[in-house]
């Protein structure tokens, strides 16, 4: 899909980006090929999983690479969903264009939220995002213009007639958004910008001393992540054809978005993807069967991950790999672990 841009200066980190990008391209191509090859499986499941995974990757940009834990990503998901819904229904905008609009609005909102909250350090920022999430949900719940608590129906019209529902279109949209998120994540991880984010996570003052502007970096990565989540929210709105504040702005969504990268492996490229895939598939199965206890299971999982394997699935895999292949025990620079001890 997208080739790595020519390396400017930072030669070392870019080298490995090619391999990751190749894997990403292969994965995306495979996902695109699935329905085209006439596969009749559960596209809906993969669709929702891809949207979750996109959010997971996006959260990891902010929470993993930059170490800014946010409990408020549902805000971007919901705003993206509402933006796309309004653009499609009231504005009669091309649905794909309206997804771009959703991304833009979410990014703009992230700046609005980030301007005050990124002046805060670590825990204060996390607390503030819980507040922002609840405040936005409350406002949307009372906003009569957008249907308030009773929600908003998405009517997609073409030439005065309702556009029929084609699962493949939704699916391919999700694949493209997912692929985009993956490429963004890889490019961020393997760039100067990503290194700067890591520096901010590890020690904000020291990072500032080396000439990095932590505030601007945080704002930028927040906006990038919000745009991806907003697009995912927009795709969801178009697919679901009906959205309401307690659905899309639900605090549980913020929780889920945060859980996936933690379970998969924080501050890695493939951790959030694995976490998202596991979560998406398990979620669909669990919600159907044990609607009331699935969050408790995730809570228990979260506790186990933090206590026993802060590196998540990826960290566990690395540890097993190391145990199997002894000769790799020294030398190779392991990517920063993500969790600050």
């Amino acid at each position: 899909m997208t080739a790595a841009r020519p390396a400017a200066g930072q030669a070392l980190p870019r080298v490995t980006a090619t391999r990751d990008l190749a894997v990403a391209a292969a994965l995306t191509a495979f996902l695109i090929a699935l329905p085209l090859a006439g596969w009749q499986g559960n596209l809906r499941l993969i669709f929702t999983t891809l949207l979750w995974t996109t959010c997971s990757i996006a959260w990891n940009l902010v929470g993993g690479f930059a170490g800014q834990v946010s409990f408020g990503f549902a805000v971007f998901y919901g705003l993206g969903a509402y933006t796309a819904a309004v653009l499609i229904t009231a504005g009669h905008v091309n649905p794909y264009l309206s997804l771009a609009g959703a991304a833009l609005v979410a990014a703009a909102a992230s700046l609005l939220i980030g301007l005050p909250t990124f002046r805060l350090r670590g825990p204060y920022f996390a607390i503030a995002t819980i507040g922002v999430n609840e405040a936005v949900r409350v406002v949307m719940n009372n906003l009569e213009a957008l249907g308030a608590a009773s929600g908003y129906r998405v009517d997609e019209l073409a030439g005065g007639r309702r556009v029929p529902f084609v699962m493949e279109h939704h699916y391919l949209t999700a694949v493209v958004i997912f692929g985009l998120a993956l490429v963004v994540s890889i490019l961020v991880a393997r760039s100067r910008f990503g290194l700067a984010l890591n520096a901010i996570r590890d020690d904000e003052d020291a990072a500032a001393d080396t000439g990095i502007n932590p505030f601007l970096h945080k704002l930028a990565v927040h906006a990038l992540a919000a745009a991806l989540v907003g697009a995912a929210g927009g795709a969801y709105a178009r697919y679901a054809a009906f959205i309401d504040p307690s659905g899309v702005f639900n605090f549980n969504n913020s929780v889920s978005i945060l859980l996936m990268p933690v379970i998969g492996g924080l501050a890695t490229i493939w951790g959030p993807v694995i976490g998202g895939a596991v979560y998406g598939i398990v979620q669909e199965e669990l919600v159907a069967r044990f609607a009331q206890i699935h969050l408790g299971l995730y809570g228990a999982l979260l506790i186990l991950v933090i206590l026993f394997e802060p590196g998540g699935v990826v960290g566990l895999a690395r540890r097993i790999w190391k145990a199997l292949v002894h000769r790799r025990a020294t030398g190779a620079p392991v990517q920063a672990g993500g969790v600050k001890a």
Partner: protein
Amino acid sequence: MGWLDVLNLLVASLLLAGIYTTMSFGMTIIYGVMKIINLAHAGFMMLGAYFVFELFNRVGLNPILGALLAFPVFFVLGMAVHWLLVRWLPVSDQPTLPSLLLLFGLWLVLQNIGYAIWGNHDRSIYTDMTLATVKVGPLTLSVVQLVVFAVAVVSLVLLQLLLTRTWFGRAVRALTQNPFAGRLVGIDTARTARLSFGLGIAFAGLAGALLASLYSFDPDFGRPFLLRSFVIIVLGGLESFAGVALGALILALVETFSVQFVPAGYQMAISFSLLVVALLVLPGGVASLLERRGRAT
């Protein structure tokens, strides 16, 4: 609004501030000693409410007595949780991502235990006292609110005595100010942390139990109160015990008076605007402002 309305609202705010302070103290103690933001606070408040509810329903125990009983029970529960989970967290002089996530996970688990046992119906505790009122001069006050306020104030006075008059209290204050210096002078940090965590959870349980007499509750009960605790401790400064009381009073005043002008649906939004404003204007809380004043003079 006549002056009587204003007076009524002021008294209502004060009563509310009492319970808000109790609820937020638990978080402050834990944060002060361990630099952990206890996101599971809401879960323990919820358990506190159901603890009283069950005792009231099964044994017919008065909910206020139940709340008093909740304190020691949750103290032990808190120490157990600390022993089981919290003590494995890396020690740090600032909140870490693992601590945030661990307690967050614990909250999810507690919430789901709540759902598993009690389902998601709204419950409430109704006694002879619930609707009783007393007349104090021109004011009509709810008896439950007064009793809850009294319990809250007494618990806070006792806590204050504990913190200022005992060796444990001194250790808590020392660790709050400087954990490393505290260790240097021979404070048993592990033991102090365990006791403080127990104390913090005990206050969460007590607050939840008291709130159960005032409001209806479900397994998601603690969340709005957790968010209020955040507003309060941020307003008060995360480590200042006097600041917390002041923060609680400010939030209670804002909430009580804003109902007059803003639809009730927007209540939480107001608290959060307050949170963001407080974070921006007073990063050290109201206490830091007072301190600065004190230093200047």
